[in-house]
Each structure stands twice: as structure tokens, then as C-alpha cells.
């Protein structure tokens, strides 16, 4: 595989944020979240689906999401996750932290060596 085709490793802690973001649009079951993540990242996030469930259960334990068994249109039973209010607040906080963090890191990394800070 070419370098830029290799799946990007996901930094720890950010996956929680991504899953919460996925749910911010509305309740989804685990498979749906996995699909959403793949499509949004253009397939660059090479994740096993099972990881998604670890994140979801962890988020459930911390009270950021609620889960319920429902029936899909295809008559399949699925456990659907929903963002809680606490989860929404956590998502907002984490998003802000991430954006600021990535801004500074990017600024440092693109600066030519020896240049004074902008």
C-alpha cells in the first residue's frame, strides 16, 4: 500500500470524541456509528468494528450515552445509543480542547526552523 493509503492510527482519547460526535446528529446503533466514522474519514480510520463497542460501553458507563434495544426496519434487533445531556456537554468541551490543541501543534509544525514565532 502507498504511504498515504495506510490507515491512520487514532490517537487515544479522540475516539471517544468522534463517537460522541457521530451521535450528536441523532441516535444510532453500533454498526451505524462504524459506517458514519468510515464515511466521514474517507476510510482513513482503519478501525476494527469491535473497538467501537468498547468505546460505546465505556461512554455508557460514564453516563455520556444511554442505550436501548429496538427493532430496525429490517426486523433486526439492535441496541441503539443516544447522547445524554452530560454527553453533549462533554462533546462540546472536548471539541474545543481538540481544536485549540491541533491549532497550536499545526502552527509549530509548519513553521520553518529558525523563524521567530508569528
Amino acid at each position, binding site marked *: 500500500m502507498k504511504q498515504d493509503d495506510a490507515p491512520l492510527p487514532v490517537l487515544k482519547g479522540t475516539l471517544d470524541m468522534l463517537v460522541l460526535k457521530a451521535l450528536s446528529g441523532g441516535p444510532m*446503533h*453500533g*454498526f*451505524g456509528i*462504524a*459506517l458514519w466514522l468510515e464515511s466521514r474519514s474517507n476510510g482513513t480510520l482503519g478501525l*476494527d*468494528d*469491535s*473497538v467501537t*463497542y*468498547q468505546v460505546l*460501553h*465505556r461512554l*455508557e*458507563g460514564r453516563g455520556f450515552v444511554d442505550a436501548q434495544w429496538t427493532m*430496525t426496519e*429490517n426486523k*433486526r*434487533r*439492535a*441496541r441503539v445509543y443516544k447522547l445524554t445531556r452530560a454527553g453533549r456537554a462533554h462533546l462540546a468541551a472536548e471539541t474545543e480542547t481538540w481544536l485549540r490543541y491541533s491549532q497550536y501543534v499545526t502552527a509549530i509544525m509548519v513553521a520553518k526552523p529558525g523563524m521567530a514565532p508569528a
Partner: protein
Amino acid sequence: MHTQVREELDSHIALAVDHLVARGVPRERAEREARARFGDYDTAVGRLYATARERERSVNRREMIDELRQDTRLAFRLFRRSPGFFVGAMLTLAIGIGANGAVFSILQSTLLQPLPYRNPDELVMLRRTNVGEARWPGMGPPGAAGLLTSPMVLGWRREGTGRLGDVATMLMRGNSGLRSVDTQFDLALSDRTIRFDGAFATPNFFDLLGVRAARGRVFTNADESSSDQLILLSDALWRRQFAADPGIVGRPITLTMGLPRVQKTLIVAGILPREFHFTYPDEVEAWVLMRWSDVEQHSPENIAFSAVARLRPGVSIAQAQHRAADLPNGIDRVANAPPQDRLAIGLESMRDWVVGETRPSLQLLGAVAALLLIVTCITVSNGLLARVSERQQELAVRATLGAGRSRLLRQLLTEGALLSTSGALAGTLLAIALQPILRALLPASIPRVGEISVNAYIVAFGAAMAMVTTLLAAVAPAWGGTRFDPTSMLTGAANSASATRSTLRWRHGLVAAQAAIATALLISASLLLTSFWQLGRVPLGFDGDKVVTVELRLLDSKYMISGWMIRRFQEDLVVRVRAIPGIADAGLASTVPFLGFDFPAAIARAGSDKTEMVKNRVVDPGYFRVLRIPPIRGRLLSDTDRDNMPRVTVVSQAYARKAFGTDDPIGQKIGSSPAMEIVGVVGDLHYAGLEHDPTPAIYVPMAQEPRPLFSIVLRTDATVSAASVVPAIRGAIRELDPALPAMDFTTIDQIIDASVANRRFYTVATVSFATIALLLTVVGLIVVVARVVAERRRELAIRAALGATMSILVRVATRDALSAVCIGVAIGLAGAYVGSVVLAQFLFHVAPRSPATYAAVTGLVLGVAALAAWGPVRRFDRTSLAAMLKAE
């Protein structure tokens, strides 16, 4: 949980397959792809399962904490609603636990705590006995306990060390009350001379005990071959007389010692640790090195030595005792004595030697305190039981709302735990607060009093008591309280018959138990109190009120020349002391009542061989005046009975009766070389203690038989205190002989008081505990009867409406409770009867099974109980009962 996880993951795979199939992927390939995308199924399951399990556990934990918080809040609310009960119960627990903690701390440091030596169970004290007693303890003739001869200790050292263990020898003050001259050391200070108790010990003494010096060093075996005169100072002496100067170690000090008195210069080898007390209660203040070679030079007939041995591991005291009988004992003191009477070494464990005679009274104290604790636990249990039956409705409601039986049990246990923990805390604080008070009140005769302190033991004991009382207090009500049927509770009246009856039966049983213990304690207390009162009524035979006494020993060599020096000193002293303003009269005596050593002698009538054992007391005429001893016949000693006059004596009534029967002893001669003429008879004096009958005694004039060891007794004027004349007396003594130290001043009533201090202490303690037990029984009884009255309201009301009189109502309401009390009293009487055997050793002039006491206590308990039971019923008078009936 496991299945849920699998379900979710399986549903994911199914959805993924559907998704792929919808995109046109053949089903088989879709399934493979879906699984591949998923990752390792089993690992995922495992991990998710573990996460789920952890979550479940934390939820459970949170639930339990919530429940606990709820229970505690409920308990607090409950207690706040009836603060009286809570405070009362807590105080009750506090008293029981506090009293026990205080008593336990005494027992712990005196009886239980190991002695401050290395492996103290291996240590034994040696004493003199005879072969019969040694070989067959208890079967041979009774041996005279006491000091050993040098051949005895040397014999052990030579031949017993291998089989039995090391031995160390000491010269110390015996327990007979006689301060041996050898062990009194004088230290000359700038303005006066002080005298203190010392002792001698062989080089291995401290190593044998396992005691190390706090400063410097102790004696070692190497000192046997050196020639230094070494001395070790006690911590107390070092602080008191040498200002805790660390530089004293290695420096010489000069002491006067021995008989005849000589000055000796000794090098201070070290200072002993503060905890080191070998003798109780009076401490040995200095230890001088005594080499084994010195011991060998002692006269072999001299019984002067004490000895301590450390038995080899594995050798029991009984075994060692048996083998010790075979050790050589040197010269037999009594020639032609049967083999059993020959001298032998007896052994006594170190612990017994230290605790000695105070063990029984300490055990009595422990037993009484334990009984009080039981009574307090019962009282609190009873109280909690009462509240459970009051709250049965509330418990029933909670049961129907879904609380399981264990949940309710847990709630009741929490309440019980809360109560007993706060009670235990209060009790521990009480015990800590009592410590200094107790220490001041304790008679000095209790050994190791100085070691009594608040320590972890008391706290731990309090905590243990809290746990025990939790179980006792909570289990009974919890057990009784959850045995109910919720529905009948809600629908029926407050008295669900079966539950109430079983609870009530328990509680009547508890009341009976309380009454039993209170009765037994009260009987013991009254017997002890009676003994104490009887002791106070013993006629002393003399008046010791406001009589000051101080002991003097004329040991200097100048007094040894002839009796004349002693006589002159004594006459001068009496004249000077009488001249001191505030002193009414003064006299001299070889020994003072209750203090000092009453010298025995064998006296025969002139011309007869039959000797009687008497106490030989040498006194001057002032003695009889000061102690206000009147003559019964003839005259007392007077100033005319001087050295150059015929020898006279005054005898006690007991002797006169023994030696002369009904004949008049006046004019008769007794004794020999020289014979003395009896000129008077006086009454018997209690000299050895209030509990012992007076022994026959004779009184010889000091002028005719001067003694270097004597006490001065003086009576102060009515308004003058004893303490105020002490400096003047010291001054008078110093004027006559500046190098003569005066030992402690005391008054005779102080001495007598001290002799009963131990008895007074445990009598007061028992009376207090018995009173508290009775009070608690009354409280328990009132609570139970109140409950009965409340629960049988309707029945009582009906009876009242049908014309029952007050007395009938009272009888109906209190019958069960009072019969419980009667049963309890009967059990208590039986217990006291059986236990009287043990109590007898503490009693004086009162029968241990005195019917009068038993009857009086029974009357007291029943009377108080009847009065108490009547109270709650009285509050239910007929009008209120009728009103109640109408309301129903």
C-alpha cells in the same frame, strides 16, 4: 451480561451483512467480510464482558453506600426524635465501658502486662523453705518463706546452674518491714543528710534480668575480677539528688553505709532506666556491686540474701522446685531436725512475687466490673427491644414497600452500631478521664501503679466492647423485630400477639438477668461494707489521733561504744522536742503501731522453763502518755525507772492471762539476765493490723534497754497541724547530731488509714458498681412495665370499666415483670451463696452467708422493683382508661 454482549455483537454482524448484501455482495462473501472488518470476536467479547462486570460492581458499591447513608440518616433522625433514649442509652454504655476500661487498665498493667524483663516467665525468686515443702509442695511441713544463706545461693551457683539455670544474688530490704541496716545508705548534702534504700547485687544480676542501663552501663561478669567499687543509681534518685546531671556517670560519690557506719567511695557505673522497679512499692534507689567473692565471705549462718534465677528453657517451676530440693544447703540451722525440715530452696515465679497479696482484690475488682458491663449491655438491649416493638408499624410499611428482611436487619444493626459506637467512644473518653483520678485513689500497695497509663490497650478494649455490645444490643431486637407478619401489622392493631409476646418474654428474661446480677453485686457490696465498718470499730487500744512519728537509727560508731551515748541522745532529744511550741508531749518506742518491726522474744516466768512468745517493745514513759494508754493494774513506766534502778516491765493483758491466768501478775518476775519485775498491766494494742488479733506484749523501759533503732512519737496541741511542727523537729535532731538523717515523718492515723486503703478501694468500687447495677435494673424494669401497660391498654381499660380497683390493675400489669424480678433475685441469691466461698477472704467479722444481709438485700431489690413498677401503672388512672375505651 455475557449473553447481552454477544447479542449486541451478533446484531452488529447481522446488520453489516445486510448492508453488504444490499450493495450486491453475495451473502457468503458478505459474512466473511463483515467478520473480518469486525476484528477478533472472542477478544472483543472478553473485553466488553470485563468492562460490563466492572460497571456492575461499581453500581452495587454505590448502591450499598447509598443504603448505608440512608440507614445512618434514618438512625440519626430516630435518635433525634427521642433524644432522651439515645442519651440515656449512650450514657449507660459509657458507664459500663468506661468503668471496665478503667479497671481493665489497672489489671492490664498489674496482672497481665509482662514484667519489663527479658522472657519474664523464666524468672523465679528464691526463698528459704524446707525439703518437705520443696519436694512435695503443699504436702510437707509449711516452710518459712524468707531469705537465704550464702551456702544456699552458692550451692545453686556451683551445682544448679547447669541443670536449672543462672542465679544472681542480692542483699536487699526484706518484705518484713524491717529496714535492714546494711541496705540504708546516707548521702551527705550541703545542708543535711539524706538516707535512702539501696541494695547489693552480684555482677550478673542485670544481665540475668535483661536490663540495660539508660546511661553508662550495668554490672557485667567482668566486674567480678576488677577491684572498682561500682554503684548504679535509679532514675528517680539521679533526678532528685543529682539534678539529672549526665556527667555523674564515671564519677565517684561518697556514701555512708554498713554497720558500723563507714564512708565508702563508689564510682557511678550508670543510671538505670526509668521503668526499672525491682521492688514494690518502695523503690531501691541504688545498687552496689557485690562480688561473688564477697558473698563467699559472709557467715554461712546469716540469712540475709535474696536471689533470682532464670530457669533454663524447658524447665518448669515444678521441675526446678523438685530438683532444687537436692541442692546443698550448707549448715542446717536446727540440729537433729527430721529430713523434711531441713533447709531447702523454694521457688516462686517472679510474677507471683510482684503481685503478691493484691492479686485477689484485683481479681475481685475485675469480676465486679465485668458484671457491671453485662448489666449495661442488658439494659441497652432492653431499651432497644422496647423501641422495636414501638416501631413495628414503620417496619411493616417498609416491608410491604419492598425492603427485604435482610435490609431491615441491616437497618437495625446500623442503629445498634451507631449507638454502641458512640457509647464506646464516650466510654473510652470516660476511662481516659478517670485515669488520673484512679491513679491518685489507688492504694500504694498495688504494684506497678506507676505503670498504669492510657494506652492502645484501653482503646482497643473499648472498641472490642463496642463490637460485643453491638452484637448483643442489635441482634436481640433485630431478631425479635423482624419476626413479624407485615400484613397483620398493618391491618391489625399494634399488638401482633405472637411477636409482642416473644419480644416481651425476651425482655422479661433480661430483666430477670439484671435483677440477678444486681442482687449478687448488692450482697457482695453490703458484706464488704459491713466488713469495712467492723474494721473501723475495732478498738485500737490506743489513741493515735494527731500523733506524729518519725523513725531514727543511731548507726554511727560513736553510739556503738556503750548504751550511755544512745540514752543521752534520747533524753536530750525528748527534752528538746517537748520544748517545741505546739507539741504537747513526746515519747519514744522501739516500734510504732502498724509500722516497723515488732520484735518477738521468748519470755519465761522466773524459775520456769516454759516460755511464751511475746512482742518485746522498748518504750519510754512518754509513750504511754502520748498514745493515751491507761494502766489497767498497777502503774505505767515512769522516769524513775532508770538504768541504775531495778529492772521493771509492764505487760499486756493478753500476756498476763496467758502466763498467770487469774493470778495477779504484779510483783512477779519474768525473763532472765536480768529478770524483770512486773509493775503494771495495760490493755492489748492492735499493732499488726486491724484484722489481726493483738498478740501478747511486754513493755521495757528505754532507759534500761537502750535501742539504737527507735521512733519518736509526739502529740501536737489541738490546734496545731502535724506538718507545721516537722521543721522544728528536724532542727532539734540536727542540733543533736547533724549527720543523723531522719526518715519520713508521718502520723499514726495516716498509717492506719494506709493499712486499710486497699480494702477501702475495692469496697468503694464494689458498692458503686452494685448501686449502678441496681439503678440500671430499675430503669430496665420501668421500661418493660411501661411497655406492658401500653400494649395491654385495651385489656386494662376493659377491666377498669368492669370495676377493677387500682391495686388489681397494678397486679395484672406488673405481674409478669415482678415475677421476672423475683426469679432474678432468687438466682442472684443462689449465685451469692455459691460465690461466698470466694468472697470470704475479703470479709472481716461478718458471715459470708449472713442471713441478715441476704434478707436485707432481697427486701431492698424487691421493694425498689415494686415501687418502680407501680410508677408506669399509676399514670394510667381509671378515667383515662375509660376515655380510651370510649374512643375505641
